[in-house]
């Protein structure tokens, strides 16, 4: 659905926001980066990374949201899980994007490995970890409810 033509501008806008925020974060830590739409460019070397479909963490976020919504739990717990899950995945995705930006300046081969395999698996495991913790939270609150009853 995210790839439908009428949602594409929203996803691209989201990507631009992520790139701009990444540039602000890099500036806060005294780094140098220029946001150009969905591209983050290093002013000295000219090397740039582009935030494209699949790089914005949306795929994994959708997968996690589907799992959270399908699991039998109260709506308040689901809302908490969705909020924490989206924040956790986007946080890791920020780390991923910024680390890839710096990794590209260092080595193209390492960038390719980290981009295509390492970070993709870490983000998926992040989603699994969030889901795991959330299920335990659901279990604990269900147990407390039963004890209180």
């Amino acid at each position: 659905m995210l790839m439908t033509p009428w949602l594409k501008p929203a996803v691209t806008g989201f990507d631009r926001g992520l790139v701009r925020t990444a540039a602000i974060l890099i500036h806060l830590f005294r780094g140098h980066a220029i946001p150009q739409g969905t591209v983050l460019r290093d002013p000295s070397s000219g090397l740039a990374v582009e935030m494209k479909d699949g790089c914005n963490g949306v795929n994994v976020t959708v997968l996690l949201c589907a799992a959270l919504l399908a699991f039998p739990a109260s709506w308040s717990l689901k809302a908490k899980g969705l909020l924490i899950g989206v924040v956790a995945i986007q946080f890791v995705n920020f780390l991923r994007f910024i680390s890839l930006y710096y990794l590209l300046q260092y080595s193209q081969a390492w960038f390719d490995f980290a981009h295509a395999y390492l970070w993709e698996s870490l983000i998926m495991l992040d989603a699994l970890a969030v889901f795991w913790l959330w299920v335990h939270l659901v279990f604990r609150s269900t147990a407390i409810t039963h004890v209180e009853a």
Partner: protein
Amino acid sequence: MLALWWFALQSPMLFALEGAESVALRLLSSPGSKEPVELDPSGDWNFRVPVEDTQRETNPASGKGGAPTKFRAIEFTIPRSDVVLFTFSVPVFWAIVLGAPLGKSSARALLWGTAVVAVVEVFSLLTLVEITAYAVVAQLHPSADGLAAWARDVGDKIVVGVIPFAAPVLVAVALHRDLRSQIFPESHPAIINADDALPGTAQGIQVQRPALDRNPDRDPRGRSR
């Protein structure tokens, strides 16, 4: 595990994938046809996919359509760096299973899971090959359906961007009983049937039992003797 895969396991896994993919594509093509997968000296994979299509070429001088040309197969190349992705799920699956607590189900989950993930990888690459072949066919027909192009795009994204990363996690959780019981605590009401649970134990729903009656003369069903 990723480092082991990257430096040592990639080549043997690609070799095994090539064999499996060749068998899968042969099943789709007519008997006696050319080898469906061939590696060129640079390591890139050349695919030959059977396709039934007819294209009428336009004569640029006269602007009229020429005789129709019938296509029986399409040949295209997928770079080695792209095919490597389809050997990636197995080591990730191994890492998850070996990182989980070792129990009785670990060895069985490792064996079955490896087989399942390997089959998923073979079919994912097969799907990508078919999508690519139909994308090439669609380029020959500029007026092709936009919805079909969108469906191919979505299929491509799922096969390349989702399945290789989600499959090892999902298969590990589905097949590794100890890992599953860690993620889904057995006492969750949705997981365990209340009839299977022993009331008052840590397993299953905490069934509400009537408060202990301190009057020994009282019948458990509530009637006074």
